[in-house]
């Protein structure tokens, strides 16, 4: 499903210095996450509201590997400090724009935004069915989320790792936000949550 869009996203995200892993099913995605966690000195990760079928296996791995998992609900009294300890943040973006290589996240709690902002490495797990072709396709989705949420609401476009060229026009990654940005695209249909 959406093979062509996945291909376009893949190319663009890599041009933006992001890394893309294609997973056939959820289990493959979890394996990719484990692979990333094992490749660095990870002692603490933060996750946003993941569906149970992702949360459970990731937590199981972390518990066996001695990795602390910060997950919602996040205690306001411990923020933002607690989140700053996480080296990896894992989120499930709400949709993806292929043309621009963009993960789009909706949040009504700023703690969720911090999961993809503070850690040095961000992993976004998405499904191929969530891809839209181009930027203009984002408009109805943004409109919908802002009308559903009549109070506070934040939508964030994330297109690769944090970057700057402020010193001698040299591209450097990770100045404030993640230095590494991974997108794992699951080709299978998204299972019902639970």
């Amino acid at each position: 499903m959406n093979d062509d869009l996945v291909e376009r996203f893949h190319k663009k995200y890599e041009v933006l210095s992001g890394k893309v892993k294609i997973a056939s099913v959820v289990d493959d995605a979890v394996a990719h996450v484990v692979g990333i966690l094992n490749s660095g000195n990870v002692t603490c990760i933060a996750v946003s509201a993941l569906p149970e079928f992702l949360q459970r296996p990731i937590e199981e791995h972390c518990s066996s590997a001695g990795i602390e998992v910060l997950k919602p609900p996040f205690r306001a009294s411990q923020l933002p400090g607690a989140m700053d300890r996480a080296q990896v943040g894992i989120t499930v973006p709400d949709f993806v724009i292929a043309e621009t290589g963009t993960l789009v996240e909706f949040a009504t709690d700023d703690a969720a935004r911090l999961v993809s902002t503070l850690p040095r490495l961000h992993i976004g797990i998405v499904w191929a069915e969530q891809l839209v072709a181009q930027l203009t396709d984002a408009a109805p989705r943004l409109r919908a989320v802002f009308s559903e949420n009549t109070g506070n609401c934040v939508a964030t476009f994330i297109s690769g790792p944090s970057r700057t060229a402020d010193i001698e026009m040299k591209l450097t990654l990770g100045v404030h936000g993640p230095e590494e940005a991974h997108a794992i695209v699951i080709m299978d249909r998204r299972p019902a949550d639970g």
Partner: protein
Amino acid sequence: MAEERYDRLKAGITEALAEKPKRDALYTAMKRGRDSRRAAVAARPDGDAFRKDVRATKLQCIEKLPELVERFAGKVRERGGTVYMAKDGAAAIEYILDVCRRKNAKSVAKSKSLTSEEIQVNEPLEHNGINVIETDLGELIIQKVHEKPYHLVFPAVHKTAVQVAEIFKKETGQEIPPDAGEIMKVVRKYLRPIFLNADIGMTGANVGIAETGAIVIETNEGNARLVSSIPDVHICIMGMEKVVDTVEDALKMVMAHPVSAVGQMLTTYVTFMAGRSQLGDGEGRGPRETHIIILDNGRSEMRDDPVFADALNCIRCGACMNMCPTYGVVGGHTFGYIYPGPIGIPWTAAVHGLEKAGDFAPLCISCGLCKEICPAEIDIPMMIAEVKDRDSQKHPAPIVNKTLMMAENFAGLGSATAPLSNWMLNNSLFRILLEKTSGIDRRRKLPPFARRTFTKRFRELPPDTSSKGRKVAYFVDIYANYNAPELGIAAVQRLREKGCEVVVPPNQKSSGYPFIGYGDLKRARETAEHNVKALIDFARRGYDIVATEPTAAYCLKLAYHKLLHSDDSRIISERTHEIFEYLQLLETESPSPAPLKGKRFGFHVSCHQRPMSSGLAAMEWLRARGAEVELVETGTCCGMGGTFGLKAGALGYDLSQAVGDPLFRKFAEANVDAIVTESSVCTIHLKGGTGMKVYHPLELLFQ
């Protein structure tokens, strides 16, 4: 007063010219900006058609701005945010100080906001004991050394890694290698506690969406995400012109901005923020607030101004800076007050006063390229001419500008007194005298005058009795009339060969472009009216108007109509053609034999051709005659700027040479026999700068 101001400006230029490494860094940055933009635009399926779309959207939104701002403010309040409409900078600052006092704030972490710089918010905050930290890397660097941004998008582009490493060594006490990556690691560590502990986060907004009450903040670094999410109090300061109607409108801006600035499709992060969210569950440090300050500060007046209203369409991408030839040499400290570069001239006039804008407006050499790159197609050159014009009511223009605006009178005299005048132009004593009295640089080699003008020679041409299909009225202009009549004659012959009846309407004057360039719009309009009147009967009788001088074609096709807005000026515009664009229309079969076979030329496009043929027609015409033609360009003006490069000293010849240097090098490195350009003034500049032969394409067939 006027003298003092020019001295200051010249000192700035001289300083910039002396700092070669800084100049090279700036040139590289600007060129990369231009090149990346061009590549990104070329890769878009619709090319640069988005500019029309952005302009139309902005125009619509500015048209109903008061209503949109009301709607936007209403939505923000519905979502629990606070809105403050600030009539000026002082009011905005007072409001921010109030919030700080109420919150007992000790620190403010800022993400980049030009609007906060416009009202200079940092100083009063610091004066009140509040620690203000810029978190955008470039802004942080210049904050540490108490400078103003050098460039809109790259504020610290003039600092080397060595200098930046030194700045942060002083700040952290840590040895830092002069490497962007290493410095960045130190900065990440240095700023992290500031993000985590700031009492207030302050951002700007690239867009405000009336439909949703959301602000949109774009960054590549992600600092705006942190300052808008962590601190309990968020303050956003935005110019009122940033409000658009719909989500779709906002997405157009969000795309046009980075494409134009650096050739990116989107900035890495785009945050659409509505209302204020909690940070985690349960009891936090304090209530979560957002304050949206909508700044007027002269914008309402701009909206009512027939000329400056166009500046409200600016989306602050900085592309005009990347394109501007003189900005690319002197940088934003000389070419700017707070808002730098071309668009900085009208913006400064509107929000910081005409006087401050007039201080750096003479750096604009009227090449017009800023309009051609602007994503909102803003007529920046015409606004700058207006600034110069209004400013000259208070400060009379220098003598040299007046001389150049009278160029036609001098050319007439030079021609009438040739060859004596030519001997004088080559006499160094005379040139010193000329420089002293008229301000024309003694180093500039000027083209000789022809004793028999084109007008005279045309009258002596044998009448053309063959039957004709098309009718052409030839617009001559100064150079072809007084200096190179053979060029005009060649134009007539080529047109006749293609079956055109050619007339030279009497009473035509030179184009008068210097009046626009130097800001005498009254006389610019008089000249425009004069020439339109001289041509209109022909145009109405079905004559096409053809010009050999690019700037003349530009005036007839574009500038006059902007000055006059009349039916007549519109007709003239519709009927005007550049010579080669016209000849190409008439060329039905390839000429044979190919008289230019084996020749290699480097082609230079005059800036004023960019909105017309871009020189493509002339290049095609030469190629059809066997020549190999390579476009040689740096992506901006050669630096001559019409007559600017004739002027003596820093604000003229010196600056013009500095702009031209990279182009001169490119021509020297290109494997070509000669340079070809259609512009008479570019010819002067390129001859002097390269020492190579420079031809008008028409000349190549009669040498």
